[in-house]
């Protein structure tokens, strides 16, 4: 099932006009606060009736302004995980997560509930009241509640934004598990690129009510044009890597399509595929194969494109094997090294500089 979204709505101070499609897997809506991301998911959920556009889930049209179709939220079967949890304070955790099933066809499926409770680690919380739960526990309950309403689509509006870093790390593995077992598309709203890089298959970048960039997450994140949009400090590509060997010294040998890397802090078992996030500002370029370097992580690369921005920096798009990623170097360095599309050089990735939390599969 795929989701087609076309939404136009005038807010005071913001003209929302977006169109995108979301296939299976996680589609992230990324952009700064005030870009209109939450309004888009509210329109998909049916909590906001836009001025114009069309929203369809597979063959089922839930909104069509031209034909006057606006299916009430209660009948859309679209699950929604809110930033603030919104658990019902007068119900136990068990009643909260069973709530949606009351209205779903066939009622509550006990076996399914048991599976979800186990998946999200809620066994010990079932008889508790929401006001006795921690922030992370509340969000896990909210995930279970949305999931058990048997939705055709799951919306998540910054589900981690209200949590501090340790709590986020605690809940991430659950989110990833849910993503992996959910058979429905997930639309995930975030203004945090690390979260997006970790979860998203597709990426839609929004700014001031418009879609400015969209596509496969790897493609968007390795697009030099994306750099100013996502912020130079946050910009970075995601690369798939295979865990070839877990070394005794705590370093893991990872195979990429264009070479090998040695990284610490990877707990995924040998043979599994993980995602690496390579921040553009953590990549150095060298014309010659570097020698006597303290870093082991050197990949031979080909320069694909250069993107000059307003500041002193240049975004260089690099290809190593089938993977594409970015390096951010200074204008002066680009000139001195005579960096040009088509040339080959060497990229030095400072492994320890890759944030631990961004190594897919490392947490949990």
């Amino acid at each position, binding site marked *: 099932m795929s989701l087609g979204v076309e939404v136009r709505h005038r807010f005071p101070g913001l003209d929302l006009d977006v169109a995108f499609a979301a296939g299976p897997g996680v589609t992230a809506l990324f952009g700064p606060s005030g870009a209109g991301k939450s309004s888009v998911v509210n329109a998909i959920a049916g909590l906001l009736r836009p001025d114009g556009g069309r929203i369809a889930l597979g063959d089922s049209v839930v909104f069509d302004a031209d034909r006057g179709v606006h299916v009430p939220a209660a009948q859309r*079967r679209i699950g929604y995980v809110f930033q603030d949890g919104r658990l019902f304070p007068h119900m136990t955790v068990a009643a909260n997560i069973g709530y949606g099933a009351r209205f779903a066809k066939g009622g509550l499926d006990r076996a399914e509930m048991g599976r979800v409770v186990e998946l999200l680690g809620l066994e010990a919380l079932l008889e508790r009241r929401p006001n006795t739960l921690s922030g992370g526990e509340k969000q896990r309950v909210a995930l279970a509640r949305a999931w058990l309403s048997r939705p055709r689509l799951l919306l998540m509006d910054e589900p981690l934004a209200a949590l501090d870093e340790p709590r986020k790390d605690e809940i991430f593995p659950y989110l990833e598990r849910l993503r992996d077992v959910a058979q429905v598309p997930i639309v995930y709203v975030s203004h945090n690129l690390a979260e997006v890089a970790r979860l998203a298959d597709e990426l839609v970048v929004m700014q001031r009510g418009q879609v400015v960039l969209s596509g496969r997450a790897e493609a968007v994140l390795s697009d030099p044009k994306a750099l100013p949009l996502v912020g130079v400090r946050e910009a970075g590509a995601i690369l798939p890597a295979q865990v070839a060997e877990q070394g005794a010294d705590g370093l893991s040998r990872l195979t990429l399509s264009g070479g090998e890397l040695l990284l610490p802090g990877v707990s995924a078992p040998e043979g599994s595929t993980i995602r690496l996030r390579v921040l553009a500002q953590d990549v150095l370029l060298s014309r010659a194969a570097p020698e006597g370097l303290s870093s082991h992580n050197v990949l031979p690369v080909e320069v694909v494109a250069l993107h000059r921005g307003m500041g002193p920096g240049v975004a260089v798009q690099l290809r190593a094997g089938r993977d594409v990623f970015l390096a951010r170097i200074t204008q002066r360095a680009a000139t001195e090294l005579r960096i040009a599309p088509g040339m080959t050089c060497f990229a030095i990735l400072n492994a320890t500089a890759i944030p631990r939390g961004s190594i897919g599969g490392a947490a949990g």
Partner: protein
Amino acid sequence: MSLGLSEVEWAALTLSLKVSAWAVVISLPPAIAVAWVLARKRFPGKALLSALVHLPLVLPPVVTGYLLLLTFGMNGVLGRLLADWGIVLAFRWTGAALAAGIMGFPLMVRAIRLAIEAVDPKLEDAAETLGAGRAARFRTVTLPLIAPGILAGVVLGFAKAMGEFGATITFVANIPGETQTLPSAIYAFLQVPGGEDSAVRLVILAIIVALGAVLMSEWLARRLARRIGQEPPR
């Protein structure tokens, strides 16, 4: 005769309880509806509706009673209409219940409106995304969360009905056994020589009933607060 009360005194007490209970029962559904509209809806004339609802609170009760008599009396517009259906309110206990209900209405609306305003509409949105239609949302989310406010409104409305005098005596007079409520009876006993003993007995009864109602509502409020996952009020 029981509790050492004369027949007239006993009749006044039971009538007051009956009138007050009915007053609350008939005014509660419209009070919830009006409180909902005032708390959640924005429309032209909202201030006017709010003022109208509060009118019985600020008008002299005698005026409210007289207006009721004009409207629901045997010659009143609604009074004649209802009489055709066999419903007579003027000078009947049902009229006393109507008068008491109207006098307590603003108090009930206020208490319930505050409770509705305290419910986060986002919770109802969440329920909607989980498949709950309008009625189901109200029943499963809003109503349980405003239960303490409804309880407070019921207690206030009941107390107001038990004490209502001016509108009642103007609309339905002071007929022993039919419209003579506790306050009317106390007033009547004070008008006749040797009636003080009866009046004092009824005053003590009024205090006991009021105290009992307040204590019971406190106990219920604590239970409700615990049920909806909030700290009991201290």
